[in-house]
């Protein structure tokens, strides 16, 4: 299993992702520069958090035109695993690889805090070792994580079970008080219909060692290691 971590100018969570892949999991790691088109045979491409291209115009608006994103779109089209975290989620929405958009937090504040996520899909490569309705403690760090989609898109997402994570309280109840940014339906993460492209605002790579408060993020990384991807790479 080879992970690729894309680096745009202004990306800040690439090394955190790299640390987890390389040092915590001992998996194979490649950093992919935004100007390169070669995905170097990676089985899963991560678009990490940060402020790609300064978030000028809109979050992710400029990054989506990077050469690497053409390859990422083709890779996703072929069924390759693409995982957008925070700014990566925003880029995937701008690129049209996931529906909807992330707008400014309803409280206008940049929110950097622990959240609880309830997992509603355990049949994806990203969540294969997570229990259904399991609550994960994973932090957020964003000013624009307020998920928006028009009503038809939102009902399509719900009908197809594309919501993977929702902000919840520590017991897993999806309540308004647990929503840190105003996201519709408390949405924290969604997949495309095919299930090979995941976007989420919280940062699993910052919750991968107990020393820093939680290792729940490892469930996602381990899922990728343990899932059907082995078949693809075998």
């Amino acid at each position, binding site marked *: 299993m080879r992970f690729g971590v894309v680096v745009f100018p202004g990306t800040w969570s690439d090394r955190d992702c790299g640390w987890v892949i390389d040092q915590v999991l001992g998996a194979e790691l490649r950093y992919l520069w935004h100007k390169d088109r070669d995905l170097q045979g990676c089985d899963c491409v991560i678009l990490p958090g940060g402020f790609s291209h300064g978030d000028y*115009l*809109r979050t992710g*608006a400029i990054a989506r*035109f990077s050469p690497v994103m053409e390859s990422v779109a083709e890779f996703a089209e072929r069924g390759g695993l693409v995982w957008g975290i925070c700014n990566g989620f925003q880029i995937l*929405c*701008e690129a049209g690889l996931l*529906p*909807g*958009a992330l*707008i*400014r*937090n*309803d*409280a*206008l504040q940049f929110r950097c805090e622990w959240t609880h996520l309830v997992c509603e899909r355990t049949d994806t490569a990203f969540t294969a070792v997570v229990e259904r309705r399991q609550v994960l403690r994973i932090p957020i760090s964003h000013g624009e994580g*307020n998920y*928006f*989609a*028009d009503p038809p898109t939102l009902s399509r997402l719900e009908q197809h079970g594309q919501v993977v994570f929702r902000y919840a309280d520590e017991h897993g109840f999806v309540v308004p008080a647990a929503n840190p940014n*105003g996201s519709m339906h408390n949405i924290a993460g969604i997949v495309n219909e095919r299930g090979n492209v995941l976007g989420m605002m919280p940062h699993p790579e910052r919750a991968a060692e107990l020393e820093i408060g939680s290792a729940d993020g490892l469930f996602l990384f381990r899922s990728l290691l343990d899932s059907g991807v082995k078949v693809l790479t075998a």
Partner: protein
Amino acid sequence: MIARVIVTPKPVVNDPQGLTVKQGLASLGFREVTDVRVGKYIEVNLEGSSEHEARRRVEEMCRQLLANHVIEDFRFEVEEAPAPAEVPSG
């Protein structure tokens, strides 16, 4: 040519910035304010095309990059760019 593009959040999109500005105006005594929406103003200078062609191109720019159709509406006007100001001599 010069294009003046205005990008606004769609009416159905919650605009927390606008809401906060509205509250600010209310606290300054502007009680008549019923709604505020905050958008973006973008000036684009284009080389030597007709107004018709410029409009077509700017429309494309808006669709492809300047606005996100999921959350934003756009409108623009196109006109001849004013002649550059002469640098005073002496």
